[in-house]
């Protein structure tokens, strides 16, 4: 009888221990997944921020004409520059926020495309916000789309970028997000 009691007790203890181990493992795996996703989103955000900064600081570099920015809208910008500092060369760079991504779970993520001259590259699929605002030399906000002679009065550009993970984390439907914002004063404007 005593042996039976020991066996039953041991089984209960073992079961409890196994459940505890499984619970811990599941929680830690989830946490690991969340950390990896955060890392991934943040890496993308920083890379994208650096790419955008690389381009925007060069707006109008080595361009003789006054019209250095061709298109200036809230989610689209096109400008002229000598991107790689090659004597006599003029490049055009364009950023366009495109359509929603159909294959991801996230209903808000969109595609951002960067065109260098005629070559377009989809540089990110996880953009939930890509907003540009434009200011003149008196730091007054210009209404978008900026058109006509107002294009020549742009002196600074503020970028708002938000990236979200394509899929939610766990069952609570929350997405990992990263946010970047910067006011850039392109020196050649």
């Amino acid at each position, binding site marked *: 009888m005593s042996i039976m009691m020991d066996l039953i007790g041991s089984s209960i203890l073992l079961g409890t221990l196994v459940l505890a181990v499984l619970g*811990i493992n599941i929680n830690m795996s989830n946490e690991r997944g969340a950390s990896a996703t955060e890392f991934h989103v943040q890496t993308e955000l920083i890379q994208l921020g650096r790419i955008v900064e690389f381009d925007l600081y060069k707006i109008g570099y080595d361009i003789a004409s006054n019209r250095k920015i061709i298109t200036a809208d809230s989610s689209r910008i096109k400008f002229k520059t000598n991107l790689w500092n090659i004597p006599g060369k003029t490049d055009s760079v364009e950023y366009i926020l495109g359509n929603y991504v159909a294959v991801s779970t996230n209903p808000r993520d969109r595609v951002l495309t960067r065109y260098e001259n005629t070559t377009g590259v989809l540089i990110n699929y996880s953009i939930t916000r890509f907003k540009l605002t434009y200011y003149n030399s008196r730091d007054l906000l210009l209404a978008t789309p900026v058109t006509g002679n107002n294009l020549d009065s742009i002196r600074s550009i503020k970028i708002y970028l938000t990236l979200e993970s394509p899929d939610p984390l766990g069952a609570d439907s929350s997405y990992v997000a990263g946010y970047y914002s910067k006011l850039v004063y392109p020196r050649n404007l």
Partner: protein
Amino acid sequence: MGRLALVLIVILGFTTGIVTYSINLSKRYTIENVVGFEKYTTARNIAHTGVNLMLHKLDTGDTTFINPLNRGQKLWLVKNVMSGLCSISVKLTNPAALDTVDLTSKSMYGDSTYNMRLRLQRFPKPFPTVGGAVSLAGTPTVFTMNGTPNIDGRDHLMNGSLTGSRATDTVGVAVATAAESVAVSVYNSKIIGDPAKIGVQPIDDPGSYVPEYISGADYTWTGGNISGNFGTAAAPVIGYVHGNVTFAGSGSFYGVLVVDGVIDMQGTYDIYGLVICTGDSNTVQTSAGTPEIHGGIIVTGVGSKFSMKGTADVQYSSQALNMAKYIPKLLAYKIMKWYE
């Protein structure tokens, strides 16, 4: 049973360790990402600070930079800034023109580097127009010349010789009214001008420029005898006389001299640049010796006097006036190219 429990605990510990390590690794990479971006941003700020440091060197008339620059040399400034390192070079694109500056700024912060290459156009801020070797806008004008002094409106180099072209010559004495012209014409024999000795023309009011000159003065004199050298052709300065001052001896002054009071020039003291008399009851006089003023003089204010004695000379010099325009702290910069 006991052994099984032991094995399970070992497996549990092992699994926990691996997952914890993975999480920590992920967090570490995330932090490294942020730190990397912060280093990049800081490196950019350091490079930008380097540009400002170099421009400050030029603005403050640091002759250890300005003199070699004017000789066409390229100079480097290496500074520790914001826990990083910045190397900035500067060069005049065309040393003869002084108007274009090339800068490179290279910064390092941690393992991040940032480079900037820029070309700046520098130009003088608006400067009073000098209509003659001596321009009189006082009311009334008190103008005397005794002894053998000369006022020469022909364009001279700063060494006293005439320029090769007469196209930039001007009148000897510019006055605002015909009545003043009559008063000055008594001394016609001591005045040289091209196309005329005396010209009746509007005199530029230097009043709007003077406050900046006074507030930015490198030297302020309120009285006494002044001797010695102030400024050079490469690094002209701003002087402000507020009182009764005598410039004597064999010194020299290069730049803009604002007079609100009395200056008496004696000995062989030379002034190169622009002399502006502002305020009321000012006196510019050369009472003895052979002092020379190369550039131009504008006399304004109620009751101001201009008096020359001995063998003093006033020579119009567009070269000296141009030199005075390039007082470092009076220059403005415009970006021509900025690559980063």
